[in-house]
């Protein structure tokens, strides 16, 4: 659908979030007082969306796995929170102090992203996963062992909390900023280079793309955005404690990205909102020992969705029964038309057949169906 030259699909998420924000903030200005639990939920949803979208940049578009996203958030939360704690007495708890601490938090997280990215991203394979995992543990342990005066040590850092009546507005403005940065990056020349690297690194290298540079750039951007979410976190809580930012939190973000569909920004947004809401709602339903079922649910979501979406043998099944096909049945559209629309940036480009073009290797499929037990 087009409005003149502007494609509405590019802007649909800004539109929804922007509209929601305008309605809610005008209500706030008009004097409506929302329940605190709702305000807290909105803040957490915004933080969740920023995290999921930024992680999606690495997992969905770069095709690398980061298991230390919470670590970058932790750096942002501590550094941003510390700067805020120092500035607020001088500047007041206002927007200026917030912006400065936001920049500080983002910068700190970005620097960490570069430090972690340099050793891991020039290698091929699963190194980024393990290095980011290690990074998350290092950060946790370092902040936990700081002195009380510097970063609060075991007790955690005391941070100023923004007026909770208005924080959600800032939070959603940051969500819009994140979307703008990420979507423009993906649609730019750089974004296409990144997708090319994901689909075939060797081919991308052969066409002259500086693979390490683009990988590092994308990863650093993602880390900086996670740092931003961290600063927001520090502003929405009185205490920043490094134990919050453990492995489980990183996995939760991964679940959001996988549930939303890897490479789909809109999917990540919806999944982030859904999971954040589930995190507050499920504990009221699954009390006591049942609360563990939540983790079990996340685990199953990860396994089932990934196998369903990726298993080579399920391809025929997927093509027949997927959300797009089902939706198109209702719309009475021609399914092929949708796929021809090159403007659909938010659909993962299906694995380009670069492999087939460049590869002379035999794959088992070339030898007929890959039967159990290999050759018969």
């Amino acid at each position, binding site marked *: 659908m087009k409005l003149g030259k502007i494609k509405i699909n590019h802007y649909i998420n800004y539109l929804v979030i922007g509209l929601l924000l305008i309605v809610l903030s005008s209500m706030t200005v008009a004097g409506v007082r929302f329940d605190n639990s709702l305000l807290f939920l909105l803040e957490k949803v915004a933080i969740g969306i920023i995290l999921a979208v930024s992680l999606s940049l690495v997992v969905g578009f770069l095709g690398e796995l980061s298991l230390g996203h919470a670590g970058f958030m932790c750096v942002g939360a501590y550094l941003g929170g510390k700067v805020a704690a120092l500035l607020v007495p001088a500047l007041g708890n206002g927007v200026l102090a917030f912006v400065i601490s936001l920049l500080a938090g983002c910068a700190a997280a970005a620097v960490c992203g570069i430090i972690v990215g340099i050793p891991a991203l020039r290698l091929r394979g699963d*190194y980024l996963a393990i290095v980011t995992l290690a990074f998350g543990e290092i950060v946790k342990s370092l902040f*936990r062992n700081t002195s009380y005066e510097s970063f609060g040590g075991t007790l955690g850092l005391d941070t100023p909390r923004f007026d909770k009546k208005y924080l959600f507005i800032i939070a959603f403005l940051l969500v819009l900023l994140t979307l703008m940065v990420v979507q423009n990056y993906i649609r730019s020349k750089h974004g296409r280079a990144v997708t090319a690297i994901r689909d075939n690194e060797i081919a991308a290298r052969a066409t002259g793309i500086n693979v390490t540079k683009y990988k590092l750039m994308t990863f650093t951007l993602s880390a900086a955005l996670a740092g931003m979410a961290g600063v927001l976190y520090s502003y929405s809580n009185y205490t920043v404690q490094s134990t919050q930012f453990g492995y489980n939190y990183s996995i939760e973000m991964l679940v959001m990205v996988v549930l939303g569909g890897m490479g789909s920004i809109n999917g990540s947004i919806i999944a982030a909102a859904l999971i954040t809401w589930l995190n507050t709602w499920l504990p009221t339903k699954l009390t006591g020992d049942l609360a563990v079922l939540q983790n079990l649910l996340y685990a199953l979501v990860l396994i089932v969705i990934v196998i369903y979406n990726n298993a080579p043998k399920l391809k025929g099944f997927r093509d027949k029964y997927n959300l797009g096909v089902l939706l198109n049945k209702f719309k009475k559209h021609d399914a092929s038309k949708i796929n021809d629309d090159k403007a659909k940036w938010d659909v993962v480009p299906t694995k380009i057949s670069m492999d087939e073009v460049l590869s002379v290797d035999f794959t088992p499929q070339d030898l007929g169906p890959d039967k159990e037990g290999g050759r018969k």
Partner: protein
Amino acid sequence: MEVILSTLINGLSLGGIYAMIALGYTMVYGIAKMLNFAHGDIIMVGGYVIFVVMATGNPLLAVAVAVIACVILGITIERVAYRPLRGASPLAVLITAIGVSYLLQSLAQIIFGSAPKMVTVYEFGSVQFLGATVQVASLVTMAVTVVVMAVLTLFVKYTRLGRAMIAVSEDRDAAQLMGINVNAIITITFAIGSSLAALAGLFYLMKAPNVSFTMGAMPGIKAFTAAVIGGIGSIPGAMLGGILLGVVESISYKITAIAPYTDAIEFSILIIILLVRPTGFLGKKRREKV
């Protein structure tokens, strides 16, 4: 002198456990080309099986049942979660592995609760050696690790099955063309890795007599770190990396000033190694082919 000796022996026995886990990681990585994140949690399952069977009071039976259970678990995981993804992107396999790891942990938490359980497998006692008190269990751990590594190296080098493993590791498609049953080889690899994990669980219990649902997580991550430091895919490398990490950890805990930063130190070593020598100490350089 006495202090140095006892620290060293502690480090070596801890390193032995890491090496044992790292061997499993490195074999699966080398042959199935995947990072089996759930490997650490197989240790945990082994620990719980030992805990349950120890109700009979027979340590040998407990160990045997644990090894068998872990082998079955390893093969099942490979069949159900990883095999459908053969040929899919490495990222998909990695995320599934994390899902499996998370699944095992939550299942254990549901079944056994979150509080750790104490279990004493067998008490070897301790001996005096050059003035230092040495746990016999530590010596047993070290001895078994060395034997296992030697047997594995010989197995891979000199048996038909072992050579088939190398072939699959070098070039899966070519191996298949040569008549090697790739799926069977990968299943066997998982079985060997899982049985090593069960043994690691046993040694862990001899050192620290309690099981909890997170007991495999940290040793798993550290063992993978060890495997990368030693050179992923290399059997002696896993051994070397494990021992190195164990000794570093032991020394670091000994020095009061840096003790709180022990984990940070260990993981920093990983990052430095990847910067300086990405293939690890004993890893082979791989050439990318189109």
